[in-house]
């Protein structure tokens, strides 16, 4: 996980996704080819930092490395450019988490590796109250 998260740090810290140079569609996570028009002319593009919740769930059982955060909300967010991001929600009280709620991006501690103690950081979203 260590080298992987270093390699992906721009993706994880800045929400760096892809923009298609032919049709203009934008994607996160980044793509190898445009899912809209099939073009392979895609380049890096930072995603907008705000969007709306499409759907969400509250996890009661987690993956190793996320135990301390449980239970937590996981949401699928549609950003203002149409790209979709799967993300954790933080600092968001239960009563504000609902379909259609506005959210904004932030950077937080993502996961603590049990064996090495390595901490990785990445994007999370907050419901705008």
């Amino acid at each position, binding site marked *: 996980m260590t080298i992987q998260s270093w390699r992906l740090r721009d993706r994880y810290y800045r929400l760096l996704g892809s923009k298609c140079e032919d049709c203009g569609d934008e994607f996160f996570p980044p793509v190898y080819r445009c899912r809209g028009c099939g073009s392979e002319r895609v380049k890096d593009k930072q995603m907008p930092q705000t969007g709306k919740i499409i759907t969400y*769930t509250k996890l009661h059982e987690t993956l190793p490395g996320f135990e301390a955060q449980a239970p937590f909300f996981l949401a699928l967010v549609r950003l203002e450019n149409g790209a979709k991001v799967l993300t954790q929600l933080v600092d968001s009280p239960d009563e504000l988490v609902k379909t259609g709620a506005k959210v904004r991006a932030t950077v937080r501690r993502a996961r603590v590796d049990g064996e090495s103690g390595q901490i990785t950081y990445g994007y999370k979203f907050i419901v705008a109250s």
Partner: protein
Amino acid sequence: MAKSKVYIASAGLTKIGDHWGKSLPDLAVEASRMALKGAPRVKPQQILVGNMFSAIGAGQEHLGALLASALGLSGIPAFKVEAACSSGGSAFNLGYSLVKCGAIDSALVVGVEKMRDLEPEEVSQALSMAESAEYTQFVGATFAALNGLLARYYMEQMNVSRDELSSIPVIDHANAVTAEHAQFRKAITADVVSRSSMIADPLRLFDCAPVGDGAAAVLLVNEKAASGARKAMTEVLGGQVSTAEFSLYERDDMLDFKATRHAFRGAMQRAGLSPKKLDLLEVHDAFSVVGALSLEAMGFSKKGMGARDAKEGKYSRGSDLPINTFGGLKARGHPVGATGMYQIVEAHMQLTDRAGENQVEGARYAATQNIGGVDSTSAVHVFGRAS
């Protein structure tokens, strides 16, 4: 392409559950020996092993050669086929294709998984590998969480109630009561589902298939090799594996199970059969919402109606199209890489009148649908009573 007919000459399976005293090779050998014993004059020319996480679960890879050696079949080609929870159905598809096109006369296909040796969070970690490590595991999404997101979306978009969603697990448990190899042989009500503990809101414990150990195997033969087999075979009429955008969030319409839609259509076309002809269907209901969306993708229910139709009795025992006749993933059990092979063995049992109390009277045609990921891969096969 040669057009030999392909048959399941014989089959074997273990009960699903806690096999504390048996290893992954023990289970694979047990199911394989049963299948081989059913057609003693047939020598398989190839072995295909469907398995998802033997490396994590048992510290073991290289299952093809391992099983060939253990069965005294060293020398023949043998492979492990991995496609997450559709590993079993995918391995079968490969074996069927090789026999169908004339490359080989016979194949042993085995699905095996050992899940109960792992701690719950290790199982979650292993299952999450069916999805993107870089963007799904990274945010802490378990496999159940992705299905929880999907379940909420389905319920909100299609106005599906909690009771309706519970109806497929209820059918599964009712059918498993008389199924000898099933993991949970106890009937439940919708109320039990909706009061079970929360896993990934709105999905509760009884919306989710359990963790278990098991293996299931078949011996596939062409017409030439079939002369060495006993009577009561099942004909494999058609099959197809399809894939879709890998992750749920990469799809324009998350409620459209495209891989299943394409695989089902292709398999039925190859079989030359109208879906109306099917007498039973084994559906991949790893989560209640997945069962509902699968029934919709295959066209048996209209969009948004899968769970509602199940509640109305459309898929119950005694209906025109009973599903999950031995309990489905929820009650028969879901040893992930083996599940597709369990479905296929169950179709074979139905079409050769070996289903005991679970027999669908006069069943002539059956189909099985086996998903990997959240419908990232789907393997569908169609079977008929051998004439």
